């Protein structure tokens, strides 16, 4: 049976948030080797906030991401390394450097309503011969028609795949089905889906995406990603096989890299905590989790109050500074 979709592993990019951007070359090499050996076609390596994300705002990378990309690429026999680029954070030169280090795919990410800032980066991806993806973040915040409109923009700039990205882990399966099905009807390029597990919906949402026609789906080993993490790659491989799909992935091998390579270096288990639940419930960007905990501690306020206020303010991805601002205002209001 032919392959219905590609599983793309984001442990080494989305997992950067959970690791507070402290991946080492050794960790990346071992994970990359395991992913390649298990049959994963694409996996992503970058700072959690994409190329150029190393910053005081999001957290400084312990090791330069270009070194990590290069190390990962060296371990690949068949798999290809993807990088994330968020315009406004990373620039075209960062992508050119990443390609020199071995990247073969770029995912250019914007907030779900702001695709038009990505035109020059998507064009560059194509020019450099990369598999080029448009990545619509916080896709729960826009109605279906808006998602379609923005996906069409990405396609018009040259994207080969457009992703619906549930950055807050807010969506329920019917939200995913509605968005993927609408894209399937209106655009010619392939469709991807990226989940977060803040409401324990990641696997169910991934099934909904595949059934509605998504051909690229993201996962992370042991759910190592922002918030409560992503769809767990090794679980996804098992579930989709049970559903009768050919995943192209060796189940035992992907389980081994998850449990023997990734689990030992994880800083904490990827549980659904009170904070990540509130993120999913109120639609807050998953990478705010650890920053919110730090701000709550610094200013002596309840992290849930910060998250609810961020949801009310309709914060978008990248606004980590707003967390500290909100925490300070909450602390002042308490006095």
């Amino acid at each position, binding site marked *: 049976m032919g392959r219905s979709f590609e599983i793309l592993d984001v442990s080494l990019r989305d997992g950067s948030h959970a690791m507070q951007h402290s991946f080492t070359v050794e960790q990346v090499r071992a994970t990359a080797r395991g992913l390649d050996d298990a049959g994963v076609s694409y996996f992503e390596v970058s700072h959690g906030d994409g190329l150029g994300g190393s*910053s*005081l*705002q999001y957290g400084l990378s312990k090791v330069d991401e270009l070194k990590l990309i290069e190390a990962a690429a060296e371990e690949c026999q068949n798999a290809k390394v993807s990088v994330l680029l968020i*315009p*406004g*954070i990373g*620039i*075209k030169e960062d992508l050119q450097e990443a390609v020199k280090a071995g990247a073969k795919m770029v995912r250019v990410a914007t*907030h779900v*309503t*702001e695709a*038009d*800032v990505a*035109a*020059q*980066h998507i064009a560059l991806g194509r020019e450099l011969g990369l598999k080029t993806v448009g990545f619509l973040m916080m896709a729960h915040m826009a109605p279906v028609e808006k998602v379609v409109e923005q996906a069409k923009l990405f396609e018009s700039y040259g994207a080969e795949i457009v992703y619906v990205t549930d950055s807050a882990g807010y969506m329920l399966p019917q939200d995913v089905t509605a968005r993927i099905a609408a894209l399937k009807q209106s655009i010619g390029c392939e469709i991807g889906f990226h989940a977060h597990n803040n409401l324990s919906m990641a696997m169910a949402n991934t099934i909904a995406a595949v059934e509605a026609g998504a051909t690229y789906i993201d996962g992370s080993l042991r759910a190592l990603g922002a918030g409560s993490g992503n769809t767990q790659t090794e679980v996804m491989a098992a579930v989709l096989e049970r559903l009768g799909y050919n995943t192209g992935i060796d189940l035992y091998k992907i389980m081994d890299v998850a449990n023997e390579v990734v689990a030992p270096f994880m800083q904490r288990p990827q549980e659904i905590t009170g904070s990540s639940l509130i993120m999913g419930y109120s639609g807050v960007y998953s990478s705010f989790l650890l920053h919110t905990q730090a701000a709550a501690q610094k200013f002596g306020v309840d992290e849930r109050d910060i998250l609810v206020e961020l949801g009310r*303010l*309709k*914060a*978008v*991805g*990248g*606004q980590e*500074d*707003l967390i*500290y*601002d909100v925490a*300070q*205002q909450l602390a*002042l209001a308490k006095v």
Partner: protein
Amino acid sequence: MKKCKVGIIGSGNIGTDLMYKIERSEHLQMSVMVGIDPESDGLKRAADRGYTAIANGIDGLMEQLDLVDIVFDATSAYAHKKHSDLLTAAGKKVIDLTPAAIGPFTVPPVNLTEHFDKNNLNMVTCGGQATIPMVKAISRVVEVEYAEIVATVASLSAGPGTRANIDEFTRTTAKAIEVVGGAQKGKAIIILNPAEPPIIMRDTVHALVAEEGKEEEIIVSVDEMVNEVQQYVPGYRLRGIPQFDGRKVSIFLEVEGAGDYFPPYSGNLDIMTAAAAKVANELAKQLITASV
């Protein structure tokens, strides 16, 4: 009293907002608005207010050069070089509001008159105008090894020029954080937020300083600098007090605009045009004095 005649190239958001600020400037006389779309709102408004409206771009302006002494360019980084070359060759002073950065950077409370001998002055970016005074407020107290700024603006206030120029924005702002702000290394991040009602421009400055223990002096310096910016952008405000974490200093700001062309949430447009008008007004004052 004699005034300098002003032309604005670019009848979009920035150019139109700038027109209203020129009208309030002591030494400037609004004269010409240049666009490329005869139907543009900016050109119509300029014509309604009795100014010359030129709808065929720089070519049209080059035929009526006697109408201008100082020309603002509010088009795009890509178009600016041609405009600047033509105008400076004709002896005009050019103030660049695109991130092209051909001329030296000018941020009023830091280096208002420093480059008045040059024919092209660059106004950095909106994020740069909002944050570089704060970087300078720190670097005049203690050495800044690294400074990074995050500008969050309402989606509605970011026009097609800003969107197409997003890499130029981050690159130019980062450079000016170093050159004007005095940081050894600079970085800039811009975020567009589509929330309704639109959010007021927010800016955050994070800096790594060479030594701890200067907290009180930094707070005083920051307050003084905020007062300076408020002279031309009254809605420029600190949110809370500067935060210190070891060698890291974080300053949170919001910028509410004067509401000239765009509503007050567009502090990003306002601080750019207010800064440019302030520079031009000061330049005009010097030119007028010199010619007397």
